[in-house]
Every structure is written in C-alpha cells, then in structure tokens.
C-alpha cells in the first residue's frame, strides 16, 4: 500500500488534463511523482539532455527557449513541459529555465506513456500543446522565412524590366520573353528615363496582352499604353510579404511593383508569393472563387479553419489574422453574389453588397455573425425589383450560414427589408442617425458605422463613408450617444483563483472575450475615430490616426493597442485550441485554462480598457444625452 499524497492529488484534481482522469488513475499518478525545487534563474532542462520525465509545474514560472536562445514560451502553475522529448524519444530540444523559484512534479516516462496511450482526452490535451510547438519548430526552422515575418524585398530576384509607353505590344512581348518575366513597367519618357515613381505610368502583364489584345483581335502594332493598367497599386520593399498578399487580395491584382524610397526596385507576382508559402489564405481565396455551387463553398469550411490555425502557429499577430479572415469572408460573399446572379439572372438595377462590423474592420475571426446589407440604385422600384433583391439577399445569407457565418441575431442582414434600400434612403438613414441622434436609435445601428462595399457598386459604400466622416466629426451630441453605447459593455476586474472577478465582487466561471474585451475596445476606438475624422476602419489603424490627432493622454493610445492585441490573441488561441480539440470554437474562456502569465496580462489589459472608458466618459459627456 502506498501512502496517499493528498496535497499532490488535490493539485492534480484542480488542473487539466489530470482533472479528467478517474480518481483511481489520478491517485496512482499522484502517489508516484517525484518533486524537485529549482531556484530562480537555474536551468531545469539543458539543451541536449536525455529526458525520462514529464514536468508539471506545481508553483513558480519557467521559460522555454528555442535552440537559438530566443524565448519560446513562458509557463506557470499547472502547465507542463518535457513531453516532446518523451514522445519523440529524443534529447531536450527546448531548454527550460526557472524564471521564478519553481517547484515541479516529475512524472516518470512509463506513467506518462501509460496515460498518453490509454486516455484519449489526456493525449489530445497534451498533444495540442505539443503540436503547436512541433509545428512552430518546423515552420520556424529557418527564422525569418515565414510569410508573416519576411519582407517583400526578399521576393525580388531582379530589377524591374521597363519599356517606353510608345513601344509596340509586339516589341514588349519580345522583351518579356527575352527577360523571362510576366510583367513590365511602362515609362513615360517625357517624364524621365529611369524607373522612379514619377516616370512610371503603368504596368503590362501577360494577362493584359491576352485579354485586352489577343482576345479582342487587335493588332500587335499598337502601343503598350493602349493596353496597360494605370491604377497602380504599389508595395513598399520593407513591408511584409503578408502585406503584399493582402494588397493582391484586396485589389484583385496579380502583380505589384515594389518601391523603395520612390524608386522601383522590382515587380512581384502572386506566383512569387504562392511559391513562397504554399499553404496560405491565398489558396483558400482561390478555392472560394473556383467553387461552382454553395455545396462546394460550404465544404471549404475546414480549409478556412486550417488557414486560421496555421497563421496562429506562424506567430501572426491579430491584425494579420483578422484581415486574412476578413479577406476570406469577403471572397465568400463575392462568390455567393456571383452564384446568385448566375441563378437569378442579371440584376435589374445596379446594387452594392455591403459588409458591416468586424468584416468591414478587417478583424474577423472564426466565430462570427454575418452582418450585411444592400444598397440599391436610386432607380430601384420596389414592386418591380424587390423580388429579385430579396431572393439574392436570401441566397447569399443562406449560403453564408452554410459556410459557417451564422445568421445575425439582430437581423442586420440584406434579407431584412430595412437594410435593402436605395442609396438615397441610406443617405437619409445616416443623416438621421448623425443629426438627430439618440442612444436608443444608435444602439442597433452602431454597426453601420463600420461599413465596406464588397461586391457591385462599391463606390457607393465609399460615398456613405464620406458622408459619415463629414458630418459625424463636429456633432458632439452624436458622439455622446455613441460613447454612451460604447460604455454598455465593460471588462471584468480580473481573476481570483479560477473565477472571473466582476467589479461588483461577483464571480463567474467563464468570460466572453469578445463581448468583454475586443468589442468594447473596437466600440471605444470607433467613437474617437469618428471624432477625429479618421478614414480607417481597422481598429489598429484607427488607433494610429487617433494617436496622431493627439486627443488621448500621452501613452494611452499605445497601451490600448497592446491591450487589444493581447486580448485578441488570447481569444484567437482559444479558438485554435477548440478547433484542435474538435470542439465548436467560441469566444468563451474559462480562467482555469489561463496560465498565470496570461492572467496577469489580461488583468492589466482589462484595466487599460477600463481607464480608457473612464476617459471617454470624461471627453464626450455621454451623461448629457438620453
């Protein structure tokens, strides 16, 4: 009979993945642990050491390092390490050092293997933690090689090839063949001979020659100026490859000229990026535009989740993830509109399909509602045309629901007649909301202040955004009403043991990170952004404008940005772990799954949000309005 380790057992009962094991198994594990104490700064597991134990942290904090000495992870009470070397039967690859005085429980290799082989949930839990690291290990092997951390400059292999705008297409094509390139910069020789941005007037690609010349049966003797694209979208050489990808997705182009201090230093194509990173959201977007029906679109849900988790493994920040997911969401809407038109026939009058809320802000994650609306041409006649648009809205909305974007519970969807109106009516809506505001009326329409056109006449969306910008800035009553609504959702005070601590002392078991964290920050930033007339929609970009406008006390803007990033990443990582564990991802987090490190930082982030809300109250005086 072994002596019962009541303290150890008690500890295991409180922590996953042990808490899911039966009492009998747990008792056996607890009774056989070894205990070791490590003083702060001392090495626990050196690189290359053989390892035959699984380490569970009883108290204290440890740091896990990569081989190159960079910090990889920080773990606290209830976290564990060493499983990777046990699973692979390899020496330690991630050395571990105590950051604070640390007490660990060591579980023998045989016991670990027994648990891993016999208890699926245990294995899943440990493996998810571990896979994250394994994958990071493989993707991070050559640091700086990732789509997310590499700069555009690394894709450039040669200087851009240029031709004068008077060159014939045939000459240009010969030049392209000689140089083995798929695109050329076009220069206006009167403005200069070199490829500085002042003299470059356009770009010609393989595709232009095919679709604008050959397909139309034009002569190859015409000048390249006649078939070139002139609305040039540039990317800076010091931007991330990811930014280039986002530009291509957003503007639907396949080539981007690269600038460095106003000089053209190269041209990159979508193939350069695809070659660079074979599994990314560009592929998903491509599959979306190739899908032939809603069934095929719905089948892509897993690809979307895969691309989401991959980005997290690649250490993408929340802005990158949010904008990639929004680009994917936008592609779904665009393809569904196209499919709807194919089924219903050409639209009787022009229209614009809108994205609202997180998609418009470029902050979409996996769990998201579809918030959308339709702007119709002013010539719209309800009796004649509404059947068509109602059918189109329903088609898109049902399609989105099947692709994982649940119906909006507030019924803010184009299938709702209120949100399927001509441009003139939309202008009236916004004028009314801004000129005669009430907190009540803005409660449900706040979401329309993040708006983006995704299909059709997207310039109408720009027009509405301009209207908002021109009228909202100076209207203090409107800003007061918006800030009043932005104060409805507040962060919790912090954590106590495994509970969420509310400001009034109540405790709850879980916290909705969207409702209590990212959403109140987005709401708050929107109010300031409207006040300073920012053109940006993304919360991080709005924050930059707000900081520049100088309306926040010094340093607060940056604090808020860090707080948003941290809360968003906790939320994102939680969704990834849900996906990995084959659970339906959600926005709820139970504090017991948070490490000490996360708790501390979350608490701080909540405090920053809280003080930002107090400041907003002071600045916009929401108490004056009703």
């Amino acid at each position: 009979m072994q002596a019962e380790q009541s303290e150890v057992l008690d500890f295991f009962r409180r922590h996953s993945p042990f808490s899911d094991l039966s009492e009998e198994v747990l008792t056996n594990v607890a009774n056989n642990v070894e205990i070791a104490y490590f003083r702060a700064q001392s090495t626990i597991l050196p690189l290359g050491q053989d390892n035959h134990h699984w380490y569970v942290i009883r108290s204290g904090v440890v740091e896990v390092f990569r081989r190159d000495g960079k910090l990889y992870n920080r773990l606290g009470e209830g976290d564990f390490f060493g499983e990777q070397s046990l699973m692979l039967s390899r020496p330690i690859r991630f050395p571990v050092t105590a950051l604070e005085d640390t007490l660990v429980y060591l579980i023998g290799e045989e016991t670990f293997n027994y648990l891993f082989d016999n208890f699926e949930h245990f294995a899943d839990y440990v493996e998810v933690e571990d896979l994250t690291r394994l994958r990071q290990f493989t993707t991070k092997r050559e640091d700086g090689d990732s789509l997310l951390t590499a700069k555009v400059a690394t894709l450039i292999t040669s200087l851009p090839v240029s031709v004068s705008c008077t060159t014939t297409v045939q000459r240009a094509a010969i030049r392209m063949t000689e140089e083995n390139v798929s695109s050329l910069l076009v220069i206006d020789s009167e403005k200069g001979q070199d490829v500085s941005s002042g003299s470059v007037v356009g770009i010609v690609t393989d595709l232009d020659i095919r679709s604008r010349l050959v397909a139309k049966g034009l002569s190859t003797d015409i000048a390249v100026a006649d078939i070139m694209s002139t609305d040039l979208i540039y990317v800076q050489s010091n931007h991330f490859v990811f930014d280039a990808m986002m530009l291509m997705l957003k503007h639907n182009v396949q080539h981007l000229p690269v600038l460095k201090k106003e000089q053209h230093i190269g041209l990159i194509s979508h193939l350069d990026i695809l070659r660079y990173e074979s599994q990314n959201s560009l592929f998903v977007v491509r599959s979306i535009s190739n899908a032939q029906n809603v069934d095929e679109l719905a089948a892509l849900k897993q690809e979307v989740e895969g691309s989401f988790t991959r980005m997290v493994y690649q250490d993408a920040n929340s802005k990158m993830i949010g904008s990639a997911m929004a680009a994917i969401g936008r592609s779904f809407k665009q393809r569904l509109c196209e499919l709807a038109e194919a089924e219903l026939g050409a639209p009787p009058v022009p229209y614009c399909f809108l994205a609202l809320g997180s998609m418009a802000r470029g902050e979409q994650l996996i769990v998201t509602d579809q918030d959308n609306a339709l702007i119709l041409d002013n010539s719209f006649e309800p009796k004649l045309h509404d059947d068509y648009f109602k059918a189109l809205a329903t088609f898109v909305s049902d399609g989105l629901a099947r692709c994982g974007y649940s119906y909006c519970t507030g019924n803010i969807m184009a299938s709702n007649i209120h949100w399927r109106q001509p441009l003139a009516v939309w202008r009236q809506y916004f004028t009314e909301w801004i000129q005669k505001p009430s907190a009540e009326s803005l409660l449900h329409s706040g979401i329309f202040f993040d708006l983006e056109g995704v299909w059709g006449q997207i310039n109408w969306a720009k027009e509405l955004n301009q209207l908002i910008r021109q009228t909202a800035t100076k209207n203090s009553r409107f800003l007061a009403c918006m800030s009043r609504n932005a104060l409805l959702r507040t962060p919790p005070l912090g954590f106590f043991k495994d509970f969420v601590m509310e400001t009034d002392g109540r405790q709850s078991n879980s916290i909705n990170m969207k409702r209590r964290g990212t959403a109140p920050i987005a709401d708050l930033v929107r109010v300031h952004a409207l006040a300073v007339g920012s053109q940006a929609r993304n919360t991080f970009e709005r924050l930059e404008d707000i900081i520049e406008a100088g309306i926040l006390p010094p340093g607060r803007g940056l604090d808020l940005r860090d707080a948003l990033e941290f809360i968003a990443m906790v939320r994102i990582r939680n969704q990834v772990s849900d996906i990995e564990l084959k659970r339906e991802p959600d926005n709820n987090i139970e504090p017991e799954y948070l490490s000490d490190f996360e708790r501390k930082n979350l608490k701080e982030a909540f405090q920053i949000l809280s003080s930002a809300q107090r400041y907003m109250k002071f600045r916009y005086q929401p108490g004056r309005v009703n």
Partner: protein
Amino acid sequence: MFYIGKNQLARQGQTLAKTKQLDWSGRFASLAKTSKYPSLKAFYQQGVISASTPLLDVPMVALDFETTGLDPSRDSIVSIGLVPMSISRIRCGESKHWIVKPKTNLHSASVVVHGITHSAVADAPDFSNVIDTLLGCLRGKIVVAHHAPIERRFLHAALMRHLQEGIEFPVIDTMAIEAQFSRRKSQEIWRSLLGRQRTSIRLSDSRTRYHLPYYRQHNALTDAIACAELLQAQCVTHLSLDTPVSAIWS
C-alpha cells in the same frame, strides 16, 4: 510536525541541549556491536556516509512525527510520515505514512492540531508493529526534519519503551538551517530596534521565503514532504551542492 507555542519552545530550548556528534561513522560502528535488537543492529551495521560526502550525494529521508504532546517521557507518537529524498529529488513513490496507537491518551489540544481523533487511533496498529519497517526506511539515510529534536527524542524514547534500547542517528534540521540563514544577527538587531517580531522560522513561514506553495493539509506525510522541499530550497539558495554534509548535520 507538532506545532509548538512560543513559551513551550523556550522551555524546550533549555532541556534539548544539542549534542554535537562529529564522528558518526565511528559511533555507528560501536553501536552495531552493542545493539541487540536485529533491525536496530542492521540499521547501525549499514553504517553512515562519511562526513565529507557532498550534499549532492547524500541519501536522505525526511521524517515527521505527530505526537500527543511535547514530553517524550510522557507523550507518544500518533503518526509517522517519511519520504526518501536527495537534494535534487523527493521520491513520493517510496513514502510511508502510519497512524499508530499512542500509549498515552490523546490530549484534546493536540487533536485540534493534527486532526487525528480517538476513533482514528482505535484501529491503528501498535508502534511495535512498525518498528522494523521504519528502521528499514531510515537505514543508510540521513534523517531530515523541521525541529529535529522532536523526531530524534521521540524515536529514542519509543524504542526504549519497546526494545529497552534507544537510538542515535545524525539529523539535518531545516529549522536550525533557517535560523542560521534567515536570522542573521545584524538583521535581528534591526528588527528588534524597529520593534518587529523575530523572523519566524516555523515550517510554513520558512517555506514562504522560498516561494514554496502553501499546503492546506497537515499530516505527518505532507509535513515530511513540506520539510523535504524546504531543505532542497535552502540548499540551492544558501549552499553550494559540493558542501560536505558535516556542515549541516548534527
């Protein structure tokens, strides 16, 4: 571990005069010859590590008794917890925990402290039943305890009572170590000048200084483990691991 009040501790200090035994190997060799009881003889015959053994290589066993009171001549052991250890590992898988029938009645005051009630000891084995196993567990190892005079004197008294021969063995006392390192004279003078209490060297207070976790439960085994963890923390904090064991045993 028995929790001693301040006044009691002062009295204990007078009666429990420390006897420095430096040549433990020689002492064990001679006791092995005179000892009659087989498992006690075996205990001495196993011998003891040399005084120069570095801490890193010392086989140890953390030991804790709960007792009916503080006087070994009148009170007796109620429970025993022990866990084998070294400076780097505490091996819970080899730990032991016994409740034994005390010779004397349980004082109600001590019941409050260690939570062992009359009904719990009614079915417990007599101390004589665990002597052989206990001595086997201690054999070849250095005993570690917090306020070791309790364990040392109660074990001696119990063996005298049952075997008519006592026991001598070296101990490492975590409370004495704590007194040495956390109650430096200059610090204590400052504390008293500032009107503060002396630095507490009770087990739980000592553990806090090394950021060891707070343990809710108290029984002889959890206290033995708590003491074992404290010794590891003390050694890596204050001593080098090649320090000879003679520096901390007595």
